[in-house]
């Protein structure tokens, strides 16, 4: 599956995207693994006490997981996941 990182998260991962080969059945599994891999600079924006952090945006194939099954949203080998820290503009 492909994972893309944006804004501040790129400072933590030092990459824009990667092909993730470790198994992840759902979004929870993937994000937990990513938080372990990239540590606190990544995790603090993404997960809080086992739940999604307040303003993080996680998309699976372009759809916000909060409109799907949240952290239980299932993933496939072909899934494209995009993770955004809190953002603004206008």
């Amino acid at each position, binding site marked *: 599956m492909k994972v893309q990182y944006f804004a501040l998260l790129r400072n933590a991962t030092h990459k824009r995207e990667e092909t993730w080969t470790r198994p992840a059945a759902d979004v929870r599994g993937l994000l937990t693994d990513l938080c372990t891999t990239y540590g606190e600079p990544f995790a603090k924006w993404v997960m809080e006490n086992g739940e999604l952090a307040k303003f993080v945006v996680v998309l699976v194939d372009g759809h916000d997981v909060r409109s799907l099954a949240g952290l239980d949203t299932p993933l496939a080998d072909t899934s494209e996941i995009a993770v955004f820290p*809190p953002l603004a503009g206008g």
Partner: protein
Amino acid sequence: MNGWMGKILRVDLGSGKVSVERLDPKLAHDYIGARGLGTKIMWDEVDPNVDPLSPANKLIFAPGPFSGTFAPSAGRYDVVTKGPLTGTIAASNSGGSFGAELKFAGWDVVILEGKAAAPSYLWIADDKVELRSAAHLWGKDVPTTTEMLYAETAEDAKVACIGPAGEKLVLFAAIMNEMQRAAGRTGVGAVMGSKNLKAIAVRGTKGVRVADKDGFAAACAETSRKIKEHPVGGTGLRLYGTDVLVNILNSVGGLPTGNFRTGQFATADKVGGESLAARELQRPRGCFACIISCGRGTKVLSPKYAGAGEGPEYESAWGFGPDCNIDDLDAVTKANYICNELGLDTITMGSTIACAIEMFDRGIIGTAETEGLELLPGNAEAMVEAVRLTGMGEGFGKKLGLGSWRLASMYGHPELSMTAKKQEMPAYEPRAIQGIGLNYATNNRGGCHVRGYTISPEVLGVPMKVDKDATEGKPALVALFQNLTAAIDSSGACLFTTFGLGAEDYAAMLAPLTGEAWTAEEFLKCGERIWNLERLWNNRAGFTAADDALPPRMTQEPMPSGPSKGAVSRVPEMMPEYYAVRGWSPAGEPTTEKLRELELA
């Protein structure tokens, strides 16, 4: 008065007569200031059927009660007039320091009437007001004009001026202050040009009086803390600026690409805020009393598009970038600089070029019409040249300067203009995001994102996440955002304070500042009153429910690709509920009951 200065400056540009009027405290409380107060004055004094570029139109500059105080990120002002691009009431909001300086000079409102006999500028130094010749400034760009005025008025004067675009009555000409901040939309700069007014320079030595100093200081400390602690206002905007939005809109399939033909652009990342931070960004910039600093001080080093200035913001980068199928950030940044230098609205400019590109691509126009410009998708050089020609009023730029609706209509294809009420829709796809489409269709100045910014809940999840594809609840959400924004715009506060603050927070600062009782409900009610007054004005100017619409592409052409493939905008099915929520008739007119409730009848 506290908060307000209590004085209105009225200048008859034709005779040069200057008069001073007292600001009615009841009007100040009911309309707050800036956008609201300016609109009320337009309602009272100007026939909505006036020709916007005639001397009978008025041009109003007004800061808000917060402007010039240390309320955090709250030093803004509005320019209010009848907009030549749309024919609607137009209030264009800008940051920088100009608004604060008007307060320091002792003014809540400056009303410009009539037309000067020859190019002129207004010099306001506290109570001393002079109309001076601008013969030596006419034709000069914004930075040159500004610096010449610093030299001949005061080194620390603040200057709001037009560039060649406003002089040539480009229908989307902007008024620029501090060179890089724009009262950008709806052609307020053309109104200024039509009055032969090149600039206003102002310097003030007074201060804003505060009713309860300790109370106000405490309220401001609290709101500053809330803004700083919010992850968006506190960190993200300063690091990446608004352009950071490119990638998230692209990822959800809501980044209008190629004149809104679709919602995703393969190389969008190249023009996003992350790329801008890595390449052109020199330093963040902030306005008067700002604690966020979303502004981008930037520089392009490549010789082809060399320049320096501020921006681009998200909607500007979008307009010159993905909307034109362009991914060259240097070119996009250069186009933004040219707009600032010549005084042009970046959103309408980019979208108008995108419309011309689609017509060129389809063979509706060719190099004969464009006078040699190869306006093909992705042709960055042609895009940058098109901007310059428009600002200078030369060649095909003369036609581009009419905006996309008149341009496309000229060639028999108004449906290719991505506008609502003839103003170009900014960088969010109505087919992918239902609420923003409803805001575009109902906004009192046409295609405008910022005054009903439901992108925040629909895409960003701030303050909470709502489903962007749902229509349920969207009419009420859009109306709420529109009302709150109208009040905030009238107070002098920047909309980015909404990352952290709610209506109760603005009321909590207004009360000790003004010495009046203010609640969240009252603040919101002012906003609703202002929205309805704008609507009344537009109704009188001939706008009807038929004008609360989006281009047919949005409602009839399903999104061809991306995560929102197959979607259309469902604005028509949301409209009856929007009117009902607003307390309007099915024909979209405020009812007598609603007007009585808002003390507008």
